[in-house]
């Protein structure tokens, strides 16, 4: 079974991703499965009743389409066709911060070690690493930093609100 990084450790993936599913007949039964947004929106009633169905978002999909679903969806996967396409970072923050999604938020596609820390800050908790890469090695990417300045999904307060107000200020001119 393909391995992924989940909650900071290498894990076995129990999900089947069906990125090319266009109708219900394309959706495998009896396994947890993620389908494209278009299919989800077209067959929401059936898929919701089935349970164990997640949604795959393309970079240009609008996360507000899932505003009614985030409370119940177990998994949302965001595709990075190339790691240099940064739209998924905004999608992730919107899902976590604006639409209060608390299920598994998974990065899929061109997912590499050197982007994991930034993705985790934006709210991803699962990473389906590109197949040719070693997940054990990539785990180190999650420890590249011990904190950044900006407010994010994982760190809702920016540095200037986390900083201890009592810390002394060293000024340039004594």
């Amino acid at each position, binding site marked *: 079974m393909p391995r992924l990084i989940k909650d900071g450790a290498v894990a076995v993936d129990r999900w089947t991703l069906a990125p090319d599913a266009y109708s219900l007949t394309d959706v495998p039964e009896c396994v947890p499965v993620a389908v494209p947004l278009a299919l989800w929106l077209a067959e929401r009633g059936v898929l919701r009743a089935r349970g164990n169905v997640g949604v795959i978002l393309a970079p240009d999909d609008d996360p507000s389409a899932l505003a009614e679903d985030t409370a119940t969806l177990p998994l949302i996967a965001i595709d990075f066709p190339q790691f*240099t396409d940064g739209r998924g*970072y*905004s999608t992730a923050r919107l899902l976590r911060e604006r639409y209060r999604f608390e299920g598994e938020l998974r990065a899929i596609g061109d997912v590499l070690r050197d982007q994991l820390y930034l993705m985790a*800050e934006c709210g991803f908790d699962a990473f389906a690493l590109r197949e040719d890469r070693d997940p054990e090695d990539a785990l180190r990417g999650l420890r590249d930093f011990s904190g*950044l300045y*900006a407010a994010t999904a994982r760190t809702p307060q920016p540095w200037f609100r986390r900083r201890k107000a009592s810390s002394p200020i060293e000024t340039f*001119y004594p």
Partner: protein
Amino acid sequence: MYRYEDFDRSIVAQRVVQFRDQTRRFLAGELTEDEFRPLRLQNGLYIQKHAPMLRVAIPYGVLSTLQLRKLAHIARTYDRGYGHFTTRQNIQFNWPRLEDVPEILAELAEVDMHAIQTSGNCVRNTTSDPFAGVAADEVVDPRPWCELVRQWSTLHPEFAFLPRKFKIAITGATGDRTAILVHDIGAQAVRDAAGNVGFRVAVGGGQGRTPIIGHVIREFLPAAEILNYFDAILRVYNRHGRRDNKYKARIKILVKEMTPAAFTHRVEQEWARLCGGPGTVPPEEIERLASHFTDPPRQDLPRASLAYRAALADSRPFSQWASRNVRPHKRTGYAIVTLSLKKTGVPPGDVTAAQMDAIADLADRHSFGELRVTHEQNLVFTDVLQSELYTLWTRLKAQELATPNIGLLTDIICCPGGDFCSLANAKSIPIADAIQRRFDDLDFLHDIGEIEINMSGCMNACGHHHVGHIGILGVDKNGSEWYQVSLGGSQGLQASLGKVIGPSFAAAEVPDVIAQLIDVYIDLRHPDEVFVDTVRRAGLDPFKERVYATAH
């Protein structure tokens, strides 16, 4: 200036460790060139014609002498003994070895410097007014706000992979020395009738192959909302900016294609969801940052220096230098001094390691250990006693840093061009040099008066040719280098884009063309009318007629 805290240092240190490992993996073949490229670019490292080029950030142009000495050390140890100050207040080293770059970054971290996001499709170094804190026309000191934005933009996790690069400029004066209207975001700090600080926010300005003056999308943004508003702008851009064509990927194209009104509406909608949230900056934070930018311990002086006045009367070379390179200070008895990096024979913006050390010594002696970098590629001492100007002038002269040409024809803004840059279509440094040599009569230069000649070696416009009073653009015609000339551009709050005067010229013709343009100006000018105003009044025709009647 801002002093790093442990947290700032930890981020820069961790970034060095991260990049050291990325470089190791690239050299070991574990990262492909395509995978490594964005990583190295976000650490300022280009692969250029002859060698890598490392661009080091000088946040909003403020530099301490400790840092300058470190830059001198890096130039000597890892490069060929010089550095190049850029039009975005950064410094570039043109000859480092890839293998050495992690070590260079570690050395920079020792003095709280880095190369984070000086390149790549991310938020770049925020630029600002080199006279911040001392300018007579300052409404709000922009430096605390610049530092706030520096921290926010540094490794902002949502915006590391934008459609294209993103440049922010912030000013707090009524006169613009920052070219805010040709930036992706240009923010001008202003005060409302009640004295509250806010920002006038322009978006979508830029140079490059599609030059556009920025659109003001908000006349008054409450200052505490600056980060939320910038988040909103960046988020709209990150999600909707074009990624199919890198020449149409800047935010200016998105603003144009959506229309400024529709773009503004999207930003305002997004901001409405963020306003008042964690990103709203509490007053204590601005006070904290402002406390890093207190005035140096200046003397209280009752009057302007009499010795300075006497020296002006005694020495014509000194008064010539003072008339161009010295600017009034907000405090009596002090002056702002610009060190010219535009000596004929030296590529514009280049400084040797020995000069850097000498400049650091002089800044320690004469300007409280701090200096500034301008986007015109010169350096500034912000706090010089008028009574010490003559001494400083003689010391600067000894270092060849006292060319009295600030704002004059030979103070050319110029990119590295085809001698170094792999993007360039044509050389730029030798053309700048030929123009400087042609205008070697100092009295004539002073008589011509204020004029900005900006030159870029390609349409990426690093030399800001679109906003030069005279803009020169290197173009490639069937494999040979030609130069297109434009007139009437200007920076500032009434920024305008220059218009091309006609067919381009061979390199050898350029100095003659400039001379003819100047001759027309001298024939047509009204008393006290500067070059660009004559161009605006008389139009392009008289200039075109002269140039093309004789040249073609």
